[in-house]
């Protein structure tokens, strides 16, 4: 084939050529644009408010820039962040949030792992039914489900009534408005987020590995600890992140089920924003929370990709 003939053949495909070369950018570009508009832009708005000064105005903060004597003055008020450190309320509610989210994640893992394991090991029809049951609660409103827990946990609720009827206790146990109720609510709410990634991981575990382990002399518990558990770490990490991250900023559960001393950062943020109308401090709380969450997540992701590569 001559050179010109080859060129002639290529020409009609110029657009396709261009697309192949630049299409990648297009494909990545769309989600990038989406993230810019709906994540990065609001993020900058919140960031801006967090470094501005409180004012009795509408909106309730001063602009960052002002014009005076021909000078453009940019005022960054870091006082909001300073305030977060100075007032022990914020630090302690951050710590409470982390503590509650951490233990909720542990409880969800301890509950969710065996459930995911059973679902992954069952077959066909049974597996589908079990998966359905895990997802069924999503079909009703989250708020409604948390309200239902009030009915179960309150002084004359289902549990106390039952225990008093059987004579185990004489007076009702106080469960509502305690940390316990908050834990119950959070673990209950986020359990499916633990089960589903774990199930996805455990379902693709090659069962001949378990047979090989048994064949080489490992008892079932040893097989679990040396084969199943290490191979399900990606599922554990994914599930734990899906529980831990939303649990830290959880607002509804501690408000409805928790007591006045269950100070989680989501609640503090809410009252700062709506009760005190202190938008700058509320924004500073939100920024601090973001940093608190993003850094460990990024670190985890890096560790994970390194493990996969190594």
């Amino acid at each position, binding site marked *: 084939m001559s050179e010109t003939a080859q060129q002639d053949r290529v020409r009609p495909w110029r657009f396709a050529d261009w697309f192949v070369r630049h299409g990648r950018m297009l494909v990545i570009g769309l989600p990038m644009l989406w993230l810019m508009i709906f994540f990065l832009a609001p993020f900058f708005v919140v960031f801006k408010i967090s470094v501005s000064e409180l004012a009795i105005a509408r909106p309730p903060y001063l602009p960052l820039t002002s014009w005076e004597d021909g000078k453009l003055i940019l005022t960054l008020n870091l006082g909001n962040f300073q305030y977060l450190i100075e007032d022990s309320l914020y630090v302690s509610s951050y710590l409470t949030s982390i503590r509650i989210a951490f233990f909720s994640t542990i409880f969800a893992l301890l509950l969710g792992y065996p459930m995911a394991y059973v679902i992954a090991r069952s077959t066909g029809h049974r597996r589908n039914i079990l998966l359905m049951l895990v997802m069924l609660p999503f079909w009703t409103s989250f708020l409604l489900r948390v309200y239902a827990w009030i009915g179960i946990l309150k002084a004359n609720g289902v549990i106390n009534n039952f225990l008093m009827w059987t004579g185990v206790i004489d007076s009702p146990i106080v469960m509502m408005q305690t940390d316990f109720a908050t834990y119950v609510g959070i673990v209950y709410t986020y359990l499916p987020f633990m089960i589903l990634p774990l199930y996805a991981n455990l379902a693709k575990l*090659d069962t*001949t*590995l378990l*047979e*090989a*382990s*048994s*064949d*080489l*002399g*490992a*008892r079932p518990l*040893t097989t679990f600890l*040396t*084969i199943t558990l*290490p*191979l399900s770490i990606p599922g554990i990490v994914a599930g734990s992140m899906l529980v831990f991250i939303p649990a830290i900023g959880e607002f509804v559960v501690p408000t409805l089920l928790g007591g006045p001393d269950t100070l989680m950062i989501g609640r503090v943020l809410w009252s700062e924003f709506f009760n005190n109308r202190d938008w700058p401090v509320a924004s500073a709380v939100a920024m601090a929370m973001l940093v608190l969450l993003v850094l460990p997540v990024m670190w985890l992701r890096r560790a994970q990709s390194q493990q996969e590569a190594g």
Partner: protein
Amino acid sequence: MTSKPCPATDRPWQSESAKPFIRIRNVTKKFGPVAAVDDVSLDIYKGELFCLLGGSGSGKSTLLRMLAGFEEPTAGSIEIDGQDMAHVPAYERPTNMMFQSYALFPHMSVERNVAYGLYRDNVAKGEIKQRVADMLDLVQLSGYERRKPNQLSGGQRQRVALARALIKRPKLLLLDEPLGALDKKLREETQFELVTIQETLGVTFIVVTHDQEEAMTLSTRIGVMNNGRIEQVGEPREIYEFPGNRFVADFIGSVNMFEGVVTENEADFVRIKSKDGDCDIYVSHGVGCAPNQKLWYALRPEKMEISRERPDQKENFFEGIVEDIAYMGNQSAYRIRLKSGKIVRLTRTNRDRGEETPITWDETVFVSWGPSAGVVLIA
């Protein structure tokens, strides 16, 4: 590779007094109503390399899994080295298995994979190190200790799997299609290695395979399985030359099968009339059968002669037309259509170079054979 020289003393299955190492007695395994393994009894002796040969769904893998302890027999008993294996879990059996998929632990290095069985037995650290090094040396994988399974080639993984299965010095090694995932050349090399290792260590091997060539070259004895039953057990030569029924004759190697009826049945010969040819089939040994019984005469392609001239004998030849010839270098394969329409396959070694007038397409030829060339099959 030929089967190794086997003096009579090395054939415990021929001696009445030898004690079998593995006794499988009337073992049945049912999955629902289906019997995957159906009333199988089998004796295997120490130091054997026994091949379970069969197609897919023949029950060979299920039988192997019952020996390993992954499945419990529905009925019957399995004894290994005098010990009844009923209710003995896999992790307490003196067997190790090499899996078809190798089942290497993906999160462990080669070294950890091989050492896994020793750690489970709480062997001292120093000894583990030594034994792993020795074993990796045996399978020629020294220097690969730190690699992960996904950094190895198929052949290397296969050898890691073998090393891991051998490290505990099992009394019995079970191999499920050990060479199935390797390409042809590698498979042939590995066959040699496998036999060498088996002889070096003196471990009893039971190999499951669907590859009859592999079974022939590897094993001391073969058990041919079909539909959950054992059709025949014997040395490779026995299975090939004296198949017990049509299934075995057809499954091992290729064969021409002629259906016929006994016309003369004497103590030292039988005469069979087949509608495939004009003359009788004469067999120079007696066959225990009823007169006029329907039976089959099995004739291997390499045991026949081909000629243009009518053979100088009254029986044991058929006339036909050459339909196809395949030249394969060392031999030529002929497909000859008989008058009855039946196709006969025949192979001939190409002894001479530059044959002047070789037999060619559409020629009328005669295929002939000796009185002891074929096997009479009743079932």
